[in-house]
């Protein structure tokens, strides 16, 4: 294979989402084993909100929430911080390789409101639940923490409500079907594509070099940066979207992303299990009403915004202005939660137990229970898909019989 076809096939074309999500599951298990924490982004965004407040002269480090998630140092000294920098670098490199960076301005003003409001609700909900789709879902379930299962069910319910709301006429300015006689001319500017590709390579190699040099000094931070780069490449190139995995079940009956995520979690669960058996302690959080409320808000918010905490990252670097507002909303929502935490937590969160399924059912039992629950989730998705298209076929028949 020559360089040009390699580039076209592996660096420019989008990657198939199903293997990509499974690869993310494998990387997230490695991430846990090598850094001792799980792949998560919202906690670090909350710390950024904290740093901004410090710059403005406030003292968020005295708030209870920042004592739990720690606000010491700068993003460059933290595992989550360098991982997120890696993700941004990976997303940007991948988007540049494919000439997929373009300033995309929202077509309607209502989208900005949707983005900020949805982002705030999702950011608030995610932090109330101690994590977003990653810490409380994709990497939370493989940590064997019961709270992640509560979060998953609550998020599903929230996205169902969200899917109803985003289809309201308010959010649906009319679209036009234009009669045409020929194909839309494509404007492939090869010169620009080549320049963007080189810039993407520069970003990729520069970050890779920095991460390797970090790795030689501090294995944990360097590895976090390297894995972050991998996560970034995967989520952008395969357009991994946790929001669509839930939302599009309800809207169009599409199950591909949901199934891929369940498989990714199963793979990740086995990997995480192996590290816990070697003595790495899993991250377990409180399983109480806080995580249920947080999940519902998070599910609703991500659908209203059109993307979650991971989703806005790659869309923002692709130049989708809509998602710059989602990101700002997220940081505001998470910071508001941190501010209210000392009042909310004693009622909704901390009185409830941190339940580790590996302790409740024993190590083997916990792994089996998790895999059985994931299999049940997969069956539920398949049953929903069947029901969705059966109802649609019936509806189609009725329409045909009426005239």
């Amino acid at each position: 294979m020559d360089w040009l076809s390699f580039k076209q096939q592996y660096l420019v074309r989008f990657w198939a989402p199903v293997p990509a999500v499974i690869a993310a599951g494998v990387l997230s298990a490695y991430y846990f084993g090598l850094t001792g924490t799980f792949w998560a982004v919202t906690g670090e965004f909350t710390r950024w909100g904290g740093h901004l407040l410090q710059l403005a002269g406030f003292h968020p480090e005295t708030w209870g929430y920042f004592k739990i998630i720690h606000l010491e140092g700068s993003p460059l000294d933290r595992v989550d911080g360098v991982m997120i920098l890696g993700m941004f670098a990976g997303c940007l490199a991948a988007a540049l390789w494919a000439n997929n960076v373009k300033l995309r301005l929202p077509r309607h003003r209502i989208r900005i409101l949707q983005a900020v409001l949805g982002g705030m609700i999702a950011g608030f909900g995610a932090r109330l639940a101690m994590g977003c789709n990653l810490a409380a879902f994709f990497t939370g379930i493989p940590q064997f923490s019961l709270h992640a299962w509560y979060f998953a069910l609550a998020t599903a319910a929230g996205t169902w409500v969200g899917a109803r709301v985003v289809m309201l006429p308010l959010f649906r300015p009319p679209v036009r079907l234009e009669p045409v006689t020929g194909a839309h001319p494509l404007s492939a500017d090869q010169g620009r594509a080549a320049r963007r590709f080189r810039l993407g390579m520069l970003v990729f190699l520069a970050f890779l070099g920095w991460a390797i040099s970090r790795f030689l000094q501090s294995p944990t931070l360097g590895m976090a940066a390297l894995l972050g780069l991998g996560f970034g490449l995967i989520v952008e190139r395969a357009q991994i979207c946790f929001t669509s995995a839930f939302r599009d079940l309800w809207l169009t009956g599409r199950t591909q992303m949901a199934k891929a995520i369940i498989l990714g979690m199963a793979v990740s669960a086995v990997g995480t299990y192996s590290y816990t058996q070697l003595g790495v302690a899993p991250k377990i959080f409180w399983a109480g009403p806080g995580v249920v409320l947080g999940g519902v808000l998070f599910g609703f918010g991500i659908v209203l915004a059109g993307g979650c905490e991971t989703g806005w990252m790659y869309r923002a670097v692709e130049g989708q202005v809509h998602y710059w507002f989602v990101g700002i909303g997220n940081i505001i929502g998470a910071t508001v939660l941190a501010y209210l935490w000392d009042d909310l937590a004693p009622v909704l969160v901390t009185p409830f137990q941190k339940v580790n399924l590996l302790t409740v059912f024993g190590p083997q039992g916990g792994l089996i229970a998790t895999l059985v629950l994931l299999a049940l989730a997969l069956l539920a998705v398949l049953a929903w898909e069947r029901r969705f298209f059966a109802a649609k076929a019936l509806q189609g028949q009725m329409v045909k019989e009426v005239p």
Partner: protein
Amino acid sequence: MTLPAPDFRLDMRGEPCPYPAVATLEMLPRLMPGQVLEVICDCPQSINTIPVDARNHGYDLLEVQQDGPTVRYLIRR
């Protein structure tokens, strides 16, 4: 194989997901059987939504063309 020329165009540039996929599914039934819809979209996420949805809902996906930030889908009712 030469592809048929589209009869209708749906330009969803600037709109984020899920709107391009939802609008595509709403517009396709308005075509006569055999007619072809061209969807132009700059939401990269649509690469995972429009092709799968079109097939799931019983339409023929004739072509997907990726041109930098713009993706073009050709779908026959």
